Structures are given as structure tokens and as C-alpha cells.
């Protein structure tokens, strides 16, 4: 695996602060450097342009981005963002994920369980209110006061309006708190996906690779009151060939970056968090692969989850390799010292904050395993466990006053949580059992057989026997059963004899205890001191830089362009003809049947995918790729391998986003998947 060549662009790298390089930055809509971008790119981005683009951009609550592309609520995203939905409609007899999901009329569009689409309306600075709440407090008290203030602001602003979602987003690691108001659509239906193999062509080997030949696009539709929502603010569809070097914009919700973290935090990622994640994901991957090998049905129920595990793993490996470059960390260390030198009178306070954050990372080493296995990663992907924990906690939390609740049970967040818990959803018991076995055995491994927390979980059973018993006898797969517990509150939960509910109750004390410790010794000190550093950065460098990614709407700019790798030029565009060359017939380089059958009909010169120098990260999946006029010419679905180091810094020379072109999507809709109705809707032409 190539190591990201960080050494190249140190000067261009936003270490602790400093001016951003061309292409660099996941900018907020209220902080976009339009003038500079227009100067560099010859574009004409103004407030009206930004408003238009913001109104057409969508956040998908499942962790993706998307765009509105018709006046009747049609949404473009990636197939991999709609895959979990398609998977829930797949059966051994009718494997719609494999064959592609298609509809002949709107009546056939099907609601995706747990999905919600959100369009940003306004951003409001609430920094003074939030920082005032935390002032003078430390540790967990600080975390609770801050979270309570945030919950109150969200609730006050959106109330119980079913069409609105309010979220206070923490920016600059505590430097700013901004209230984001979204228009929300909680009925999101699946409209179309291509054949699965057309999307995952190249499989894990080609993931984060370019040149790439993946038709990673899908369409959803937002509904309101049982009818397609009216969305006049949609973006326009432009299925033309992208051009090398043309300016492009990506609007979406990058999930998380670590660019403003201190060196101690990066070392903790390198030495603790990433190695732990890599080992965990690797073993889970191995279990899933061998499980899938046992039969076609196992393969079918595992493929979506496996793909997710492999994606996360590859991303973690790439980030670990980036941090393994000791020159990179040395440069960051020097950057931290330079920052310290510019802080003037604040120097002592800043140095103290940096030290406190380092101490919090040491505490994280001690608390990390228990926190991960009992709290943040409990269940390891088991949907049933997720239901059990949510039901147990919601019962306890909803009985408390707003200010004392865990933040995920704040009034402003309950409606999405309820939807995700109660929406009917297909459960695969064998996969559930695999997750639970894995979680229980790894928890024992990490915390030790003799730990009280482990004995509370396992009793005298083995992880394998317990997992089997839980999955075979729980009734949580039944939405009516879940609803009864949600509505029945603490009394119903306490009275329940469901073994998974009982396990969640038994585990809750220890999980809360370690979470309290975590907030007191890790999260509290890190966030509190992060605020101090952010303020000092603003003082030293101004507040014109962009914040770390926070899965909130951002816009990034760049060009359609390739890069050089080991002296070799990688061009920006691939064409459909390249797919035929790369196909060997052996998985994962085998062609999807319908796509292969359409070979003669498809224009070989159609631009299939493209690389751009936009600054993106996981969460941007599904983001529209816009041209200078703000028209949709593609959808982001990946980055190249060097972009994985983008978690820590952007490198113009090598970081590339990867998109599937609108041109290829339209070509496939017309010539492979026979979707004239969708093509007409996208292009605003009369329906066939």
C-alpha cells in the first residue's frame, strides 16, 4: 500500500492553522471564501449561488450526502448509501440488491427503514450561550452543562415541528457552536439502484483506488404526507462530459477529520485508536468472510455489512500509514511550537491546555478498552442489541428533566431515534448472532475474564452460547414488540422477560459508569481545553479558516484533475471502455450481467468516473459534484488512497475525490436499466 507522500506539501498543509491551499478546505456555508475561489478559478460564486446550492443539497441521516434533482423530491446519492435499504428488501427469491431495484411507477417506491433526508435552512451562531453554560466547569460537569445548553437551544428553536430538525454543531473543536436548522423528510423511499456488481466491480481491491469503474449511484425520493414532496429548489441535472481542469464544487457532509487535533491526540490515534480499530475490524472481517463462504444465503446477508467493514478497515489502515510517517508528525510538532510562539500573552494558558489534552489521552489509554467495548462499540453492529440498549436507556432518560439526560435522548433528538427504533426492518438472525458472539468474546478479551463487567455480561455462559440464546429467544425483531416497550416506558422495560432487554439492563450500570469516567477524564478535559486552543487560534490567525469535518453541510472547491504517483501520471477521467478492459471474469472483477449484456449499446467514450482535487472525507459519499454553474455533473463516492491521509491534512498534489459522472448514470439508465421515466424526470422533459 502506498504511503501518502506528506513530505511534498508541508508548506501547503494546514498544520495547526495557517492559510489554506488551493483546493483545501471543507468550508461552512457561512464561511466560504468566495472571493478567493472566484479569483483562482474564474468562477462567479456569490451569495445567491451559495443559497441555491445549499437548498439543493441533502444530508442523509444514515451518514451520507445527496442532492435534490427534480421538483418532485427525487434525490441522487450513491448506491452504497442506499445499499442497506435495498438489502432489507432482498430475499433469497428476489435478491433486489443483486439485480438492481427498479420501479415502473411511484407506487413501487419503498420506504427505507430509519432513513431521513435533511436540507439545511439556516445557520445561527450560538457560541456565547453554549460557552457561558460551560464556563468555570471541568470534567463531566462541563460536558453535561454544555450538552444541556445545546439540548435547550435545539428544542427552543425547532420545538416539536415534525418538518424541522435543529442541531447545534460544534466547530473548530469547540471554537464555535452553530445552530443548524434543517427541513427534514422522514419518509424516504428507494427509487432505483443498479446491479450490485456494477457498483462493487473491483471489490475491496479497487476501493479507494483510481482509475475506477463503479456505477455507484442510486435514486431515492422524499415523501410528505404519503406523496412525493414538492422540491422546487432542486439542482439541475447535467449529464455532459466533465472536462479536465474545469472548476468543480462538492457539497455534502464530510464526517470527521483530525486536522486541528494536537500532536498528543494524533499520537493516541496512531498508537491506540487506529491499531485497536484495525485489529477489531480485521477479525470481524475474517469472521464474516468465512461465514459468507458457508453458503449463498450467508453471502447474501453478509455482503452489505462486509463491504462496510472492509471500507472502514481500509480507511483506518490508510490513516495509520499516514501517521506512521514520522516526518509528518515531526512537522506537526514543529507547527504546534510555532503556534505556541504566536500566542503572546496567552502562551501559558495555551501550553497548559495542550498539556491537559495530552494528559486526557493518557487517561484514554486506560479507559479506552472499557469505553469502547461496553459503551461506544457495544453490540458491534447487532441491530437487535441496538434496539435493546435504546429501549432500556430511552425509558430511563425520558423520565428525566431535559438538562439531565444523555444528549442522544434530548427532546430534540427523540423523533429520529424513535423512527430508527420502531421502523420495521428485516433482521438476519445468523448475522446478529455473529455480531453478538464477536462483541462478547472481544469484550472478554479486552477487559479480561475476571473483570466484573465481563462477568456481569456473561455470567457462567460462553460468548457463543449466550449469543445463540439471546438471538433465538428475543422478540425485538418484531416492531410491535419494540413499540410496546418504547411506549410502556420504565415499567414495561423492567417487567420485560426478553433476554436481550435483560442483558441491556444488566450491562447498563457498568456502561454508564465507564461513560461517566470517560466524560470526566477524557472528553471533558479534551473539549474544554479544545475551546481554549480554538480561541487562541482565532486570536493568532483569525477565524477565516475552515473547521474540522463534523458531518454538517460543507462546500469544497477544486478541479477535475488527475495526479502523479511514483512518476506515473494518473489521468482524471475514466471511460466505459476501460471497464471492459479491466474485467477478468473472476470476482471481484466480473461484470454485472445486465451491464455486460448492454456492452454493444453503450458508448465506450462515455466518461464513467472522474478524479477531482476537492477536499472530501467519509460522509461526503453521495455529494453532488457541481460545475461552475452549480449543475450536477456527478456524485462523489470515494477518494483515492492518498486521500485517506486527508484526515490529517490536505495535499493538493495527491488528494483526490472520486465521482461517478451524471453522464454515465444517464447512459446506464437509458441503455442498461431501461428507465426512460427517470431520465425524463431528471432532464425535465415530458414523460415517455
Amino acid at each position, binding site marked *: *500500500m*502506498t*504511503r501518502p507522500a506528506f513530505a511534498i506539501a508541508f508548506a501547503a498543509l494546514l498544520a495547526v492553522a495557517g492559510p489554506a491551499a488551493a483546493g483545501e478546505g471543507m468550508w461552512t456555508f457561512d464561511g466560504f471564501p468566495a472571493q478567493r475561489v472566484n479569483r483562482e478559478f474564474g468562477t462567479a460564486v456569490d451569495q445567491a449561488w451559495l443559497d441555491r446550492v445549499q437548498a439543493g443539497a441533502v444530508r442523509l441521516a444514515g451518514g451520507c450526502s445527496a442532492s435534490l434533482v427534480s421538483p418532485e423530491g427525487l434525490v441522487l446519492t450513491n448506491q452504497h448509501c442506499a445499499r442497506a435499504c435495498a438489502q432489507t428488501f432482498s430475499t433469497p427469491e428476489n435478491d433486489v440488491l443483486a439485480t438492481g431495484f427498479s420501479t415502473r411507477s411511484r407506487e413501487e417506491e419503498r420506504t427505507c427503514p430509519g432513513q431521513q433526508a435533511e436540507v439545511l435552512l439556516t445557520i445561527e451562531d450560538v457560541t456565547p450561550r453554549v460557552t457561558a453554560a460551560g464556563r468555570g466547569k471541568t470534567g463531566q460537569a462541563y460536558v453535561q452543562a454544555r450538552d444541556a445548553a445545546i439540548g435547550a437551544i435545539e428544542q427552543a428553536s425547532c420545538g416539536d415541528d415534525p418538518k424541522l430538525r435543529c442541531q447545534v454543531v460544534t466547530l473548530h473543536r469547540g471554537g464555535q457552536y452553530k445552530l443548524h436548522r434543517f427541513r427534514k423528510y422522514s419518509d424516504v423511499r428507494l427509487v432505483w439502484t443498479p446491479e450490485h456488481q456494477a457498483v462493487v466491480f*473491483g471489490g*475491496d*481491491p*479497487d476501493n479507494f*483506488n483510481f482509475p475506477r469503474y463503479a456505477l455507484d449511484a442510486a435514486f431515492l425520493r422524499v415523501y410528505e404526507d404519503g406523496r412525493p414532496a414538492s422540491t422546487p429548489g432542486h439542482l439541475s441535472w447535467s449529464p455532459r462530459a466533465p472536462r479536465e481542469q474545469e472548476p468543480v464544487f462538492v457539497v455534502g457532509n464530510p464526517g470527521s477529520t483530525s486536522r486541528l487535533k494536537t500532536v498528543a491526540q494524533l499520537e493516541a490515534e496512531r*498508537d*491506540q485508536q487506529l*491499531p485497536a480499530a*484495525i*485489529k*477489531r475490524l*480485521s*477479525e*470481524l*472481517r*475474517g*469472521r*464474516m*468472510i*468465512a*461465514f459468507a*463462504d*458457508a453458503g449463498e444465503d450467508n453471502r447474501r446477508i453478509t455482503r452489505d455489512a462486509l463491504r462496510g467493514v472492509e471500507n472502514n478497515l481500509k480507511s483506518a*489502515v490508510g490513516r*495509520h500509514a499516514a501517521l*506512521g510517517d*514520522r516526518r509528518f508528525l515531526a512537522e506537526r510538532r514543529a507547527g504546534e511550537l510555532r503556534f505556541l510562539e504566536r500566542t503572546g500573552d496567552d502562551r501559558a494558558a495555551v501550553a497548559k491546555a495542550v498539556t491537559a489534552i495530552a494528559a486526557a489521552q493518557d487517561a484514554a*489509554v*486506560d479507559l479506552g*478498552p472499557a469505553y469502547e467495548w461496553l459503551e461506544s462499540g457495544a453490540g458491534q453492529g447487532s441491530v437487535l442489541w441496538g434496539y435493546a440498549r435504546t429501549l432500556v436507556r430511552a425509558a430511563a432518560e425520558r423520565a428525566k428533566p431535559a438538562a439531565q439526560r444523555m444528549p442522544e435522548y434530548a427532546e430534540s433528538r427523540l423523533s429520529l431515534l424513535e423512527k430508527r427504533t420502531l421502523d420495521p426492518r428485516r433482521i438476519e438472525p445468523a448475522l446478529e448472532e*455473529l455480531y453478538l458472539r464477536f462483541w462478547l468474546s472481544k469484550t*472478554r*478479551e*479486552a*477487559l*479480561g*475474564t475476571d*473483570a466484573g463487567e465481563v462477568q456481569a455480561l456473561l455470567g*457462567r*455462559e*460462553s460468548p*457463543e*452460547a449466550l449469543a445463540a440464546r439471546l438471538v433465538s429467544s428475543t422478540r425485538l425483531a418484531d416492531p410491535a414488540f419494540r413499540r410496546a416497550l418504547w411506549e410502556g416506558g420504565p415499567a414495561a422495560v423492567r417487567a420485560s422477560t426478553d433476554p436481550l432487554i435483560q442483558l441491556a439492563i444488566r450491562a447498563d450500570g457498568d456502561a454508564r459508569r465507564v461513560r461517566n469516567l470517560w466524560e470526566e477524564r477524557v472528553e471533558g478535559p479534551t473539549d474544554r481545553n479544545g475551546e481554549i486552543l480554538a480561541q487562541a487560534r482565532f486570536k493568532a490567525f483569525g477565524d477565516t479558516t475552515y473547521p474540522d469535518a463534523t458531518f454538517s453541510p460543507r462546500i469544497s472547491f477544486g478541479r477535475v484533475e488527475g495526479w502523479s504517483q511514483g512518476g506515473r501520471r494518473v489521468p482524471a477521467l475514466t471511460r466505459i471502455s476501460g471497464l471492459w478492459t479491466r474485467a*477478468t*471474469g*473472476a*470476482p*471481484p*472483477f466480473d461484470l454485472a450481467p445486465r451491464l455486460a449484456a448492454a456492452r454493444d449499446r453503450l458508448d465506450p467514450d462515455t466518461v464513467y468516473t472522474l478524479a477531482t482535487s476537492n477536499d472530501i472525507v467519509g460522509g461526503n459519499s453521495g455529494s453532488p459534484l457541481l460545475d461552475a454553474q452549480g449543475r450536477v455533473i456527478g456524485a462523489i463516492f470515494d477518494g483515492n488512497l492518498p486521500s485517506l491521509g486527508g484526515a490529517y491534512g490536505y495535499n493538493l498534489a495527491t488528494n483526490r475525490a472520486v465521482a461517478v459522472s451524471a453522464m454515465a448514470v444517464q447512459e446506464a439508465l437509458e441503455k442498461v436499466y431501461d428507465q426512460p421515466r427517470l431520465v425524463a424526470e431528471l432532464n425535465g422533459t415530458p414523460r415517455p
Partner: protein
Amino acid sequence: MIRRALIAIAAFTGVASSAHAGEGMWTFDGFPAARVNRELGTRVDGAWLDRVRAGSVKLGGCSASLVSPDGLILTNNHCVDTCKQQLSTPERNYGRTGFLTASRAEERRCPGMVAEFLTGIEDVTPRVRTAIGTATGQARIKARDAEIAAIEGACGSDAKVRCQVVDLYRGGQFKLYRYRKYDDVRLAFAPEDAIANFGGDPDNFSFPRFALDAAFVRVYEGEAPGRTPFNLRWNAARPSAGAPVFVVGNPGATQRLQTLDQLRTTQDVVLPIDQLTRSELRGRLIAFGERSPENAFIAGDTLYGVENSYKRARGQMRALTDARFMAGKQAAEAELRRKVAASPKLKAELGDPWADIAAVQDDYAEVYPAYHFLELRAGGGSSLHGWARAIVRAATERAKPNGERLPEFTQSRLPSTQRSVLEARPVYPALDELELSYWLSKTREFLTVDDPQVKRLLGRDSPEVLARRLVAGTRLGDPAERKRLWEGGLAAVQASDDPLIRFALAADADARRVRAAWEERVAGPTDAAAERIARARFAVYGDRVYPDATGTLRITYGRIEGWRQDGRLIGPFTTFAGLYDRATGAPPFELPERWSASRRVDPQTVLDMTLSTDTIGGSSGSPALNAAGEVIGANFDSTFLSQRNAFGYDPTVNRSVIVTAEAITEALRKVYGQERLVAELTGAGGAGSMRP
């Protein structure tokens, strides 16, 4: 869970000047007897050392001790796991039932197992040094290996003798080790896996521990038990805390003499690849085993090995990311470098070997993935692939003069390679397919799909399809076919249409190319610099330093003692009573029926204990000896924090874990009804005549 906050840095020296009490895996010709006697109040002298050496055994990658005049050898159950597995079938599973014999006639030969006794050590440093001269890179390695082959070859062709030139102090010394070897080793007794490995992976590298990890094998000559001239005495008395103790065995490998830059590469490059690949393989093996009891049986031994290596490496990573531990290493390196810099003579003679090693690290990171996947770990553990590669390479190498061969095919080493290829052993195609397909997929993942080497390896196949085709089509599972190819040499190999032979032939060029690149760009320059660091260390500290472990016979000393962890004192002993308390009935805390049905053993018997001796993987099976040189137990493990032992000994936490002779004797008698073995051990016609 053990935390890192325990290390008293003041008490910890890493590789600095003189070793600590308890520290050091000493060679028999370099044991600091006077100092040890002073510290422990013992009376170790040359005769004592000779006696102990004569009773110590190297058993493949394990250690053992000779405990009767009739060739009876004590080792760990986990050292005969593979043998047990090979003698078993899914229907007659000795892992589940234990391997018990009613008479010697029922003892069964372990395929491929060899027992070796060290009979002499001779210094050949000048010869090897002279041969190396001023060569660099791969030429240096070739010159060294050719001279080693010549020295070993000069030992002659006595089938009972093996000679091995051992590289000590990373090139500082070369010693010729001469062994008397026995290649007919038979299994005499092994307990059930459930008691030998009680607690399974969760308890591995843990203490308190409750495992009866002991087994007996016997060396044979002809059809008679080997009449060995000397054996160690068995002492089944209850051990007492604080008593001096020695562990004698063949610790496999340590990296204590590596520089900080090398350790960083271990941390950033080597361990991440190792741990990632082990984690996924572990997952695959677990899920494969879950499909059926037969699969669980097939994958069991391999899974155990993977989990053991995984946990050990986790402990090593813990040490490398422990700021206090690494500060100790830094201080030690800085001290040596300062002293070299302060001496104009040393400086002129040695230059700056630390800088030379630092300069190699980028190349290391670049070449290592290909070296790891195409050469070092090629085949991913598949024994079918291992045979194919050995047969293909042997055919080429045997045609060359001794001095030009790859070291593993020189005259002196060929017999053991040959035996490992030709010995009959069961093959489980499903496991080979899993291992091969895993290896191919990981190779593609790390070297990337468009790499020309990967394309040559896979052709247009997927890893899964190729693995299935190779395993389904190969006839190498048949020992007769292996013999035919081995004896037929290059002509037979080239004429073979066996898909795995064709595959190994095709893959050999890339594997040799990456091995050459590794030797030229990494191993050669590293060895050259390491040898100068060894000279620096001798010059500054004299011979008060011990060499890194090399899988050869060493002796380490210490006491029976516990340690302090999280402010809590952990005692050195566990008992059978504790075993019964810990048994939940759910695997891996489930007792075998012989144990659960009735409790015949004395509950106060000491089962396992910890020693402050300095051991590491390879030390498994080593006898623990009291001051009189009597066997009081067998080393089988160390604690989780001891895994830092690879990089430095830490007297506050490093502990070896021993199964006691007392517990073994009690179990043989009361649980297994093996009075015959007990009588042999105690040198008595009947039970009860224990010597003090």
C-alpha cells in the same frame, strides 16, 4: 486488565551496561556463575552447568528436559499439540481424550519431531569474519552464509549429529553448536486439551493460571528407548516462594540489541502488518471452526497458534507505545553512543552504525510488504504449499555447490528440510484452501491489485478460485508423490503437472527477487551495522552482556516470586482448588470428564507458579530447576506484560509461568492412573520414593 503504569524506570535498564538480577538469557559458555551464586546463595559451577546442559533438550521450536534414563522427556502439551493433532482423526481425537499409554509399546511416533542435545560449543568468529571481509549488501550475506555452510558441512554426514553456526550478538560472535540428535520421538503422555489449555485464549499470557500444560515424549533408537547417559532428577516436592530457580531452554528470538530506529520500524511497519493479517485470519478460522465440530478440529491447532502470536504481539506493541519503557531504551542507547563518541579509537573504528541503521529504515518499509508476503510468509501456513516450495527450491538448490545454496538447503540443514517434506502426516484440504486463499487475498491487498508480481501470482483467477484449484488438483498430500519429486530432482519437478508444483515454480522468481532485494538493501546493511554495534558493546561493557535469543540453549535464573500489579500483590502460586473454583462448565473454562467427574487430586497441590526468570517464546517446555539442578516444573508461558521481554527485561513485571512437577505427578497418579510413568520419573520400583 493489566496496565502500563507499573514500571519503575529506575530499576529498568533495557540493554545498558550490566544485566539485572534475573535478567539475561545466558549462553552456557558465558554464564555469570559467581555473580549469580552471590545473589541467590547457590553453588553453580562448571560441573553443575555441564550436568544441566546434558539433560536439556531442543524439541523443534520448543524446549524440554530428559527426566529418566530411558529417554523420557518432559515438555509442554502445547509443544506436542501438532503431534497429537496428526495422530488424531475427527473420530479419535486425542486433543479431546488425552493421549494415554498402558505400556511403551503404545507410544507413537510424532511425525517430523526431532530431539537434540547440545554437546559442544566452538568459537568460529574469526573464520566467519575473515570470509565476510569488506563485502556489503547481499554479497556480505552470501559470503557469510557460504562460510557457515562450509563450517557446518565439515561436521560430516553422521545422521546422529547436527551442526549449526549460531550468530550471537547480531554478528558479534559466531559459534558452532554441535548436537546429538534423535529423530524417532514418540508421544508417551499428553493430557486433554481442555486441562492443558484450561482458560483457552482468555487465560493465555495471564496469571493466576490453571493449566496442566505438560506432556511426555520418549526418544527411541531403533525400536528401543534411547539409553541416555544422563538425565535430570525429578523433584515433585511442593515449591516454596522465594526459592532460587533456573530455567534452561531455547528462547526463540528477542530484539533487545536492536536500535531505537529498528524498534520504530517494528512498531510502524512490522507489527501492524502482522497484527492485521493475524486478526483477519483468526476471524476466518473461528468462523470456519463454527461450521462443524470437524472444522473446529481441523482448524484448532492453527487457531491456537494464531491467537498466541496475536496476544504476544499485542503485549509487544504495548511496550513499544509505553513512554516510560521506551525512555529506558533511549537512555541505554544514548549511553552507549556517548561512550563510543567519547573514544576517538572506537569512533574511528566503528563510525556511526546507529546512523547507518537509521538510513536503512525507509528501504525496510518499502521492501518489507513484498518480502513478507512473497517470501517470508508465502503460502500463509498451508503445508501443501510449504512442501511444493521446498520441493521446487530443493531441486534447484541441491544442484548447486554447497556454498552457493540458500542457507536452508545447505548440506547440514538439508536433512531436516527433507524430513519435514517427506514425513507422512495428515492433510486437511479445507484448511489448506483457507490458508492459501487467505494468503493470496492478503498479498493482493498489500501489494495492490495492479502490481505485476500480484498479476503473475493470480493470473486472471480470484484468490478463492485459484486456491480451490490448487488444493483440489495437487497430489502432494501423498508422501509417496513428495518422495518421488524430491528424489527425482529438477527434471521430475519440471516435468510435473501438479498444479501446486507448477504454481510454486512460477512464483519462485519473484520470491527470490524480493529476497535478494531484501538482503541487498535491508538485511545486508543492517547486519554490517549491527556487528559494529556489537563490537561497541563488547568494547564498552566487556562480556557482561548476553546475546539476543537465537533459538539455542540458554540458562536464566531468578526466584519463585509473584509481582505487584495495580497496587495489588499477585502471589506466585495457584492450586488445584483454584482450578475447580474457576471452572464454569462453559468452554474454555470447562473441565474434561476425568477431572469433573470426581475430585481425586489433593486440592492444595501447587498447579502453576511464576518465576522472575527471563524467558520468551521457544522457552516453552524448558525445565524449571531448583538449586540442586532438579526438575521442579516446566515453563509454559509468561504474563501479558512480560511480552515486552522481546525488547528488554523488566524485573518488576516479567514473569515466567510454570506447571509444577508436583501437579504433574499428582495428576499422573490420581487422574490418569499412570503409576508406571511416575515410577520411572521418581526412579523407583513403585510410588512414593521421592528424593529431597
